[in-house]
């Protein structure tokens, strides 16, 4: 029996067969669409990544180049700018010196730090009532630093310069996911922004050691002005280092000093856009009128020559020269003036010891000598005249001694209250201000270094001829002491920088050691005396004796360092011959 298939059944089967093909075609189509779409998305995302990477690299190059390539010239004509030659020249000790010196972001904190140190010296001198013209000079120095800073800021914010640095690197990076013809172009470069980030973080200016940072004796730096590394976690090697705080007003000598934050051991790196925007001076104002920014933004567009869909990206970067410096005045010196030694003659009169108003005699550093003292009317008790006569062994206190033994006589320190630590403190402070090597911030120079320098046996020879000595740093790490003629040969900048070595300190003098004394050994004389007229009865001779006392006075004149002179120590060594004559 043949059964006919109903038209309905036939239709169903027909549909089923054609449905499989249709399903297959649709599925294939969807798969192709999905695949192509996914591929396009992957390429787009990859392209986005490449664009971002290229813009990041370009922005990083801006952060790198801006540290050294943007500059303002240092005027060697203006004295308030010229004084920063030592902290801005690449080789400040080189002879002949390079005359075209630029101030860059790498160096500007050094300029501010030198101005700050001059201000600190002036303020400390003012505390001791020895300021003289130090505060005025410090203000001039700070004005000079501010002028340089403002000039540099005007250059830094010129975005036209950033574009070339961006192109240098961004254009070298691949954009192949967007097509072979894709290339990177800067986007709205005139509107690239700058920001002042990491406010209150450390600058790259390190202080000497730990508090009180080898600053002038008695001076305390406000703890709000300095900080340890603010990075978290603290980088290795940051322990024990103290830095000036960046973007923090530091008031000194009645003026304000600023530094830019450059965190310790941090390199130029990318930062988040919202944070960048939040710390722009327009969003978060600063009291620094013309702040030098430390963060910069850049945008780039990846475009195809055919005009296809491109990508754009923005990056923000914070710059860091990655080089710490020490707060210092590298081209500076400390002067020691040694007065010619003298013999004073004292006589015991009724009211006590009186120095003869005449008869002072000089002696020298070469030979031990003998001297004849004056005749002093009424120079004793019951005498009409006392004659100190000839005294031997004058000069034992200075002959054959190094400068250190003159300034800090060891026998003096062995007895009584002959404290020379005040001199030592002033000198140790000043020698630490002149050394510039960053290693000396970690390990400041000590009193031992000072004594070692002054104990140079050559100073025995120098003393035969010279009375003025200069301590300066030739290499930024150690100190040297020599007279002018030798110092200028060793370090010509002492002469070439406007004859710096002849400059006197800008403070006023004060005696800081008053008559340290030590009984002079082996002083032998044979004084004589004549009694008063025998009224009402003849006088009887009791004694004619003399002895010597070695003495030391030290005077300190502080220098702010504005003219290179950090101060003068004036040493006065003398011998007092005391003659005692008694008739009763």
């Amino acid at each position, binding site marked *: 029996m043949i*059964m006919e298939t109903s038209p309905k059944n036939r239709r169903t089967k027909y549909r089923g067969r054609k449905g*499989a093909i249709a399903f297959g075609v649709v599925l*294939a189509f969807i*798969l192709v669409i*999905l*695949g192509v779409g996914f591929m396009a998305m992957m390429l787009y995302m990859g392209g986005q990544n490449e664009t971002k990477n290229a813009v990041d690299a370009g922005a990083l190059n801006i952060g*790198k180049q801006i540290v050294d390539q943007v500059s303002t010239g240092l005027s060697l004509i203006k004295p308030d700018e010229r004084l920063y030659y030592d902290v801005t020249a690449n080789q400040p000790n080189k002879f002949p010196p390079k005359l075209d010196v630029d101030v860059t972001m790498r160096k500007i904190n050094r300029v501010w730090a030198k101005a700050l140190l001059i201000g600190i010296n002036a303020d400390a001198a003012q505390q001791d009532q020895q300021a003289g013209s130090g505060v005025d000079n410090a203000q001039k120095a700070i004005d000079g630093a501010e002028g340089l800073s403002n000039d540099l800021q005007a250059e830094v914010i010129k975005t036209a310069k950033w574009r070339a640095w961006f192109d240098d690197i961004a254009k*070298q990076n691949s954009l192949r996911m967007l097509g072979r013809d894709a290339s990177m172009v800067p986007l709205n470069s005139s509107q690239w922004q700058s920001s002042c980030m990491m406010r209150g973080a450390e600058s790259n200016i390190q202080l000497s050691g730990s508090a009180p940072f080898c600053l002038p004796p008695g001076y305390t730096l406000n703890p709000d002005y300095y900080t340890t590394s603010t990075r978290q976690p603290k980088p290795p090697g940051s322990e024990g280092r103290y830095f000036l705080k960046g973007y923090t007003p530091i008031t000194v000598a009645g003026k304000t000093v600023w530094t830019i934050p450059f965190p310790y051991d941090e*390199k130029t*790196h990318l930062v988040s856009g919202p944070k960048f925007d939040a710390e722009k001076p327009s969003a978060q104002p600063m009291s620094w009128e013309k702040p030098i920014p430390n963060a910069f933004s850049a945008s780039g567009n990846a475009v195809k020559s055919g005009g296809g869909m491109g990508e754009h990206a923005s990056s923000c970067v914070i710059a860091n020269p990655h080089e710490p410096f020490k707060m210092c005045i590298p081209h500076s010196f400390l002067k020691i003036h040694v007065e010619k030694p003298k013999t004073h003659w004292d006589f015991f009169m009724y009211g006590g010891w009186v120095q003869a108003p005449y008869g002072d005699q000089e002696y020298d550093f070469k030979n031990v000598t003998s001297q004849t003292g004056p005749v002093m009317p009424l120079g004793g008790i019951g005498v009409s005249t006392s004659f100190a006569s000839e005294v031997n062994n004058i000069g034992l206190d200075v002959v054959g001694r190094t400068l250190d033994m003159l300034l800090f006589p060891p026998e003096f320190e062995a007895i009584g209250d002959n404290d020379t630590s005040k001199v030592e403190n002033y000198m140790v402070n000043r020698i630490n201000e002149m050394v510039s090597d960053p290693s000396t911030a970690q390990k400041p120079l000590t009193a031992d270094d000072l004594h070692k320098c002054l104990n140079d046996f050559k100073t025995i020879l120098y003393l035969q001829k010279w009375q003025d000595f200069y301590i300066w740093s030739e290499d930024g790490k150690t100190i040297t002491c020599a007279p002018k003629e030798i110092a200028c040969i060793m370090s010509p900048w002492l002469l070439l920088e406007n004859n710096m070595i002849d400059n006197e300190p800008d403070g006023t003098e004060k005696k800081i050691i008053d008559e340290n004394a030590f009984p002079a050994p082996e002083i032998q004389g044979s004084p004589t005396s004549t009694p008063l007229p025998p009224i009402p009865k003849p006088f009887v001779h009791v004694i004619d004796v003399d002895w010597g006392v070695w003495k030391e006075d030290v005077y300190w004149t502080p220098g702010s360092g504005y003219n290179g002179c950090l101060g003068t120590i004036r040493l006065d060594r003398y011998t007092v011959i005391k003659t005692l004559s008694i008739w009763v």
Partner: protein
Amino acid sequence: MRANKIHRRKTKGVGLVESIVMAIVLIPVTLFFLDLIVLVLANSINDSACKNAARVAANQKTIEDAAPAAEKAVAAYSKNSIIRSLKLLTIDYDEANHTNVKVTTQLKVHMPIPFPGYSDFTFLARDVEPILVK
């Protein structure tokens, strides 16, 4: 009855045949796209490794430090049955002027569904970064 049987046999096989035919087309297309995606991802990984290597090298002061640092950055990317090798091919560090560092990495990818003659691909990525330290 016989004619009906013949007709039923014909119609029953068509669906299967169609499905097989469609599968023959669809499966390779799917696998092709899978391979393509693997290629794109591999290329992206190569780019990323190259960028990281260049960034790390740019943070070193000398070529002696830069090369091992870049090697280490590249080595951090794990290899598997698809990514057979990823290595630092060249590093051009401008030690004299400290301008920039150019890094090239090479990634060899083994296709998950290899096509005859196209089982392995090699990608090169190049990145240029400014040297950030002196």
